């Protein structure tokens, strides 16, 4: 169903380059995680970064949202260079993400998790909160409303108040997506959103990713090591292997690319 959905004309046509990665290299001590990676992400597109395990996909994501600082290379957002990226700055710029192994706030309910995703939009001081002064209450209500839209969007009304710890894996992934969406990001980074899911769950997740892209016009950058699903839903694909870029283009081009095929030889997909 995901495929068919995509066949429609796009609500948000793909626009200009929003994120530019240039010659990024990243090392841990001696270990080279990334070497001279360059690619661009255009507004409103679904951009996939694929590659076998250990190809440096996650490192790439972590560089984009400032968790890691590359030793060389630059990132530019809407044409302006980004110096000294930090996760917080990334968040403020409208980059939000999910994690490969779910990083939800285990002790909190689904609702609170997603609410927490909107903390950037809450400015009341702890005193205002403690005394429930108007601004605090207003922010609480306004943001709750937004969050509820997301809950509706992801069809998780029935688990709204459940502690995330009790949810099955698939749902947790969905909630994490919700938390990332809550920030109303310009760019959404998804770190292996379908890892460890059964086929229905994968299909659902595909649907939601596409719906997000389609409904909010969010630019999506997602990582997968499993070529299958991604190919159907992404507009363009970057292929990494051992920290080097070995392919870049439309799914079909990439599928045809000899280097890619070689890289994936042995990797059962």
């Amino acid at each position, binding site marked *: 169903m995901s495929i068919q*959905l995509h066949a*429609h*004309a*796009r*609500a948000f046509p793909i626009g200009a380059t929003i994120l530019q990665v240039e010659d990024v290299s990243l090392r841990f001590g001696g270990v080279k995680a990334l070497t001279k990676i360059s690619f661009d992400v255009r507004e409103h597109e679904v951009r996939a970064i694929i590659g076998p395990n250990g190809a440096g996909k996650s490192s790439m994501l972590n560089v984009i949202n400032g968790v890691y600082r590359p030793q060389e290379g630059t990132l530019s957002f809407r044409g302006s260079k980004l110096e000294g990226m930090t996760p917080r700055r990334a968040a403020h710029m409208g980059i939000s993400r999910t994690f490969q192994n779910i990083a939800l706030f285990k002790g909190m309910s689904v*609702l609170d998790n997603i609410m927490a995703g909107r903390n950037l939009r809450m400015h009341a001081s702890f005193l205002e909160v403690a005394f429930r002064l108007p601004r605090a209450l207003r922010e609480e209500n306004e943001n*709750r*409303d937004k969050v*509820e*839209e997301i*809950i*509706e*969007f992801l069809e998780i*009304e*029935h688990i*709204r108040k459940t502690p995330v710890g009790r949810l099955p894996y698939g749902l947790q992934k969905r909630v994490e997506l919700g938390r990332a969406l809550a920030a109303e990001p310009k760019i959404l980074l998804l770190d292996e959103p379908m890892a460890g899911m059964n086929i229905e769950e994968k299909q659902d997740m595909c649907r939601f990713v596409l*719906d997000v892209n*389609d*409904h909010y016009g969010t630019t999506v950058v997602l990582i997968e090591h499993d070529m299958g699903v991604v190919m159907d839903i992404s507009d363009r694909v970057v292929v990494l292997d051992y920290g080097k870029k070995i392919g870049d283009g439309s799914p079909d081009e990439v599928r045809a690319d000899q280097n890619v095929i070689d890289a994936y030889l042995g990797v059962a997909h």
Partner: protein
Amino acid sequence: MRDSQEPLDTFPKLLMHHARQRGERAAIREKKHGIWKTLTWMQLSEKVQAIAAALSESGLKRGGHLALLGDNRPRLYAAMCAAQWLGAVAVPLYEDAAASELVLPLFSAGVTHIFAEDQEQVDKILEILPQCPAVTTIVYDEDRGMRHYAQPQLISFAALREKGLDLLAARQGMLQDELAKGNGSDAAAMFFTSGTTGQAKGVVLTHDSLIDRARVAAELEGLNDTDVAVAYLPPAWIGQNIFSYAQPMVVGYCICCPESQETFLSDMREVGPTYFFAPPRVLEALLTQVSIRMEDAGRLKRALYERCMSLAGRVGARITSGEAVGLGDRMAYSLGNLAIYGPLRDVLGMSQVRVAYTAGEAVGPELLMFFRSIGINVKQLYGSTETSVFVCVQPNGQVKPDTVGPAVQGVELKFTANRELLVRSPGLFKEYHLNPEATRAAKDADGWFHTGDAGYLGEDGHLRIIDRVKDVGALADGTLFAPKLLENKLKFFPFVKEAVAFGDGRDRVCMFVNIDMAAVGNWADKKNIAYTGHSDLASRAEVHALIGDCVAKVNADLATDSTLSSSQIHRFLVLHKELDADDGELTRTRKVRRGFIGDRYQTLVAALYGSQPSVRVDAEVRYEDGRVAMVSADVKLCNAKTYPAAPLKAA
């Protein structure tokens, strides 16, 4: 003031009346975004006028038709009322109907405007649009996924409303005229009968008939504007329309729309309805849930529960009916009420229910009595689409499982030679849309409606329904054979989901049984019987034994009734697949199509009346997405324990 001048003979007029009388009271609540968003009568009336203005702009005229395709939502009811405001006819349709099933209603009714809930419904309509050229406007409520739809007919509800608000000032005069023009004899709505019998027909009902029946019933039960009802049944079904539209409009009470199907129960508990309607299948589902969940309770709690329920079984129903009961029992019951009944009513969300109806199908007596015994005033009523529901209603305190009560005010009953029930009442339908001969066949010259139901009046004046006339048959020996009666007796057992009885013109009665996946599955887990799915479970010897017991119990019961003792069930089989409306085995209201099933599974029927222990069958299954697959299975045929007819004991 103006109320006295003009009669409140149409729904829009009633709406305006409430907007004036109780403008600030809640008219509709909708659970959305986690809270109950409330629409007052005033707000509702404004919404309706805006929509009406926009609809007239887009060409909806007196006598036109607006189809409604969606779940219970305030917008849907607003649109319905807006259409009626303009003198158009509302045509609610089943949202789970397949696209192909929609062609006939849309086409035959010459529908020009459609209200569709979401992308799913819109897609269906677009699919069949070529066959329904008349359609000019499709209003969709949820814009999720609709952004890139370019079709000119499409407009979002929000946009429509905006348009209406802009037009409102300019069109105020026109709206008032339209409102005044409308009168009771106009057609208000058209309902397509589920069609247990042949092709679906569009039943046209006038404002008068709907309002009259709604009012009579409301007065009978003393409903008032503090009552609350949950709107959860398909709006396309007359019952839903009466309880969630006609009666609220007449009385001014508030209806609540649940957030979604899976949250229905918790939502219902939140709003705590005072006025509740549930077809037998819903009551069954509730009861099944109760029994399943109590299965898991600790031994002590179970024991307490069992004790309380046995007491309730003895005296509960009588206490609920306000009959005299021994002091000891009464006290014991009030203790039970504290410990079990009260909490049980509450977790079911029915602790505030004053009046509850069940109808649509004859209800198993035990089922009815279960709810009454825990203090929920569930009553049966009799009626149909053609009669705007209310023909007979059981008065408080006179609830007998085997009757549907006396005729309500304004209704005349009479019977033909072959026991068919004829009804004359102000609530009768106007006509079958564009189908005069069908109309003539159903409603004769002097206004008697032929219900097609066989029944008789007891000396207590309460109506007793036996079955559909065409279904009531006789066994080879000429004794009465009433399949539905038998099926219902069996269906009361939580393990039995559906049952189909055969025996007309045969020497003995045999049955198909559909197990209830939830109940039997749970039972199997307890017995730790491993199974892969429904068909596997259905083929288990243990399950056959389980169902065998149920059948035996039914037979024991039948044996005590002289007229029915001969229709004890001799053989039965557990069907390998669930009967399904998508396969045409059930109607959309989930009534079994006995004839259809009989033809479709003739090999099985033959086998039942044969003697072999099992038979191989291939059946096609249609999946959600329309794909069709063949499943083949060995179906075991089981003999049931039967009992000698009880001798009539001397009084």
